Each structure stands twice: as C-alpha cells, then as structure tokens.
C-alpha cells in the first residue's frame, strides 16, 4: 500500500502541476476564447459553455501544447468547435440599420455598448479580412500565429490587415459622424 500510495501521490503531484498550468491558461485566455466563439455567432451563455468545453479539451492535451502557444491552440480549438456546432461563418447578426442599433446600444453600460458598436462596425468589414483584423488588433496575436491559425501565407496576413483597417476605419468614421449628429457620441474625437 505504501509504494502504491507513493506512486499514486507522485502521479497526483504531476496532476497538480498540470492543474496549475490549466488554471493559468484559463485565467489568461478564457476571455479570448469566449470572444472568438461570440464572433462565430454564439450567444453569451452558449459561448461560455463552449469555452468550458474548449478548456476541457485543452486539459486532455496539455502535454501536446507548447508553453507559450496556449492561446493559439485554444483559439484554433474554439473555432473548430464553433464549426462543429454549425457556426461556419463569422457572425454578428448583420444589422440592416446599423444606425438604429447604434442609438439603442447607448442605453447599455458604456463599455459593453462600445463593444457592441465595435462588433457592428466589424460586421460591415469583408469577412475574409475581419478575422485577421480581430486576431491582430484585438486579440494581439502575432503575424506567424495568425498565418498558422487561418492557414494563410504570412504575406497575406499583412495585406489582409491593411485592407481590413481601411474598411474598419471608414465604417467607424461614418458611425462616429452619425453619433455626433444625433448628439449621442458622449465623447468627442480629437
């Protein structure tokens, strides 16, 4: 019993090490994973459930995940999960009348409403470009990480980002003008 206990205790100590790692990557990246799933059209609660499943999968594959590459692994897993859930295309619900929704969203808490505004702007950007934009500008992934995640050439990351930026800034500018005209801007752009 003694040697069995010692072996078991040793195994448990290894388990504890992995649990500690899982905890770290959960706290560092759960919001990123959740956002990735939301961008695939999942409702907030469904995205939380899918986020949990993503980390459960990661827990079983910890040995395969290089330290420092956890974020890319998690996003890739989340996107595959969203795909398997039938969410094949990026999406926030495209709003026929962005202006109307821009106005109503100002009633919610400011940060959440600004996040919704950002999503609405991104919904107007070419889907093949917005993914790169989001992964770089919002999630902070590097160019090689984005290329690997989206399975596109490294050079394509830069060109897609440039075009995505142009579209994003154009749409954001129109939205800002609209909000200013309606007096709902709240803060002025300098």
């Amino acid at each position, binding site marked *: 019993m003694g040697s069995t206990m010692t072996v078991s205790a040793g195994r448990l100590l290894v388990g504890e090490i992995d649990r500690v790692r899982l905890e770290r990557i959960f706290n560092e990246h759960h919001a990123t994973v959740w956002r990735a799933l939301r961008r695939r059209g999942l409702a907030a609660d469904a995205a939380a459930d899918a986020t949990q499943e993503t980390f459960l999968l990661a827990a079983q594959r910890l040995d395969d995940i290089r330290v420092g590459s956890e974020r890319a692994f998690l996003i890739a897993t989340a996107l595959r999960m969203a795909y398997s859930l039938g969410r094949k295309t990026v999406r926030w619900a495209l709003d026929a009348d962005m202006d109307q929704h821009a106005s109503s969203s100002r009633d919610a808490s400011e940060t959440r409403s600004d996040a919704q505004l950002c999503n609405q702007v991104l919904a107007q950007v070419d889907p093949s470009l917005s993914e790169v934009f989001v992964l*770089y500008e919002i999630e902070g992934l590097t160019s090689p990480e984005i290329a690997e995640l989206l399975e596109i050439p490294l050079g394509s990351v830069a060109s897609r980002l440039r075009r995505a930026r142009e579209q994003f800034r154009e749409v954001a500018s129109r939205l800002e003008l609209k909000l200013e005209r309606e007096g709902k801007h709240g803060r002025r752009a300098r």
Partner: protein
Amino acid sequence: MGAARGELPERLLDQGATDFERRLLDAAAKDGPSQEQILRMAKALGVSAVGGAAATGVAAGTPSAGAAKAAVATGKAAAWPWIVGGVIGVSIVGALVVGGRRRDSLPDVHPGGRLEAPAVAPPPSGTAPSSPAPTVRPSAGDTVIDRIDRIPGRTSSKRPSPANVSVRDLHGEIEILDVARAAIAERAGRQALALVHRYEEVYPAGTFLPEASAIEVEALMQLGRDDEARKLAKRFVAEHEGSLLSDRVATIAGLPAR
C-alpha cells in the same frame, strides 16, 4: 506597412487610432463573459478564477493583479482524468487567500509557465533560506508518513513559530497536503486524517490550515464519521463565512445550502 514579409505595423491601440477607434477597440478587447459565467467555468474545470476585471483584460497574456481570488471549487472527475473520486483541488495561489484575507507577509507562490513542480518565489529580502527547499525522495517500502517524516527540519518535536515561516516551510506544508489529497483520491481516509493531524502538529500556524481542515472534513466523511465531519464543517463555515472554501466544505459535509 512593413516591407519585410509578414511584418505588421503597430497595433491601432498602440499607435495611430483616433479616440473613437481606440474606444471601440479597447471595449472589444475587454469584452468577456460575466463573472458568474467565469466562476461556473472555473468550477467545472476545477481551477480558481481570477477576478473578472483582470480576466477580461487585453489578451496579451498578462493578467493584471485584480480583485481577491476565489478559492477553488471541486472539479469534475472528467476534467481531471488522473483523479479518482472526489478530490479537493486547492490552488496554491488561491490558498494564500482565505475568505478574502491575503497574507501579504508571505511570499507569493506562482507556478509560472514551467512544466515543473510548483515554483515558489524567492522570499522577501532578509529572509533568504539557508538551504534550497528540501526534496523528499521516496524509497522502496515507504509509507506516506515515512515520506513526510523525512522532510528536513520537520519532526514532531519542533514547532515553528509564525515569524520564521520560510520558503522551506511552505514547501513542506504543500508536500504534506498534496499527499493528503492523494490519500483522499485513493479513498484512504485514515491515511489522509493522519496526514492532516501531522500537518497541524508540525505547522500549528500553517499557511494552509483552512485547506487542511477541508481535507479533514472529507476524510471523516470517507471514514463514515459523519457527525464529527459535520461538526467540524459547521465550525469551519462559521469561521470562514462567505469564502468559496466554506461553500465546498459545506457541500462535502452535506450541510444545507446557505
């Protein structure tokens, strides 16, 4: 845009964004699940959740120091395939916060990103340990009690004073409780109870006394000593009301939900 292949310009949030663009992007980067959803996910995974504000920061991989950390809830066996039966998984970091109180005088324990035994940060200046943290090497025929007895400097006759808590002490405390949790996992309640009592004897002012008490409750339940377990659990809940550890202890002992 950078001429080199794959070279990207500075992120808009860092350079070049208008105020309005920065506002949108910043909000999008901070968007995340609700605190309730975070805690639910953490509980299912058997890990501790950092405060919501920290967890929804810009995903640069650097969680900021946030609100007080919640103690961990029990994890599902499915999330932790190496663990059989109910195991109280206590986060080493979370263990430094008991019912919202943080023992700032003790060194932080951060496991970092390394695949090795949980690292212990260097102690505050002036309290450098005189020797490296002890490593207990099991030998053939060891019982867990034998293993604990070989932790240097820790015999039943020595009672460390709180003022002398060192990295070595923390390592020793963690060692004992890790093996006690292993005993719980193997449904060896008697062994777990012996280890908890040894812990309390060696570390009367131990950092992880609440966690030890939680293990004791579970060990007593495993041994069928339900009345004792519930009595201990009630006292624990009263002393640590509001902490997630007390919720877990209450659940283990079958106390009514509060």
